[in-house]
């Protein structure tokens, strides 16, 4: 079996890092709506991925209120690339 990255294998985390490939950074509530998860779930996943160095976050403002902006790091981008390649390899083996 190809090497799958346990840090981004959970569907919500894979969706989070994949979504971040489309932007340089996204505001927290925008991400939450795209991923259709609660604040606490998103916050938990962002914290875990920040700790792993896959994602960066910073405090900022949006529409006059304080919020968190989240972006993918180069490490996270590479990890996603390798994880997706491993998943595709798995699919190809069976097909």
């Amino acid at each position, binding site marked *: 079996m190809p090497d799958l990255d346990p840090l981004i294998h959970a569907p919500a985390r894979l*969706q989070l890092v994949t*979504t971040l*490939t489309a*932007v340089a*950074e996204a505001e927290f509530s925008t991400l939450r709506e795209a991923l259709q998860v609660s604040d606490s779930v998103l916050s938990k996943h962002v914290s875990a991925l920040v700790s792993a160095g896959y994602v960066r976050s910073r405090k900022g403002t949006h529409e006059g209120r304080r919020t968190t902006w989240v972006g993918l790091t180069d490490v996270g981008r590479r990890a996603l690339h390798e994880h997706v390649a491993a998943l595709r390899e798995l*699919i190809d083996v069976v*097909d």
Partner: protein
Amino acid sequence: MESETRFDGPDDARARLAAADLARGRLTTGLKLPRGLHPALAGAVAVQIGTAAVGIAEQSALGLGLLLAGLGVFLAVATWLLHRFRRINGVRVDGLTGRVVLGTGTTSSVAYVWGFGGATWAAFDSQWWLVGLAAVMGGVGYALGARQWWDAYRADPATHARGVSPQVLAMLALVAALGFVVLMVVG
């Protein structure tokens, strides 16, 4: 979390990849360009090209002032458009920054170079109507390049999202400012 990390083979892999693409699609299909972005960008670039061409042909302090004023108009409009995009959508896309501020991409670059070259030549020849025409053509082509990038981005966001970071932009602005200082000192 345990159930999320369990893996049930290729069908599960397909489902996870599809769900991830869907989530990214939910974000990108909801993105909107600020109202009037293309006309505003075309107008700002036309003003910048026209004032730069006349300013260069003038070869005086007044000309330099005109050139800088046109550049200021362009930078103000570009900054406002990027700020509006971020405010409307809650995201920053570096690819858009590159297209709007630097005109990266073949269509924008070619339109700008031809427009600027034509306007400058016309200004030295005092053909003012041609200066205006070349500036407008350059601006329209530049905005068209931004439009092409937007269509490409919507079709394949991951490939087209990356561009020039704010840090690189700041460095380029510094280099441009130093260039102007050198021009003023030497001139």
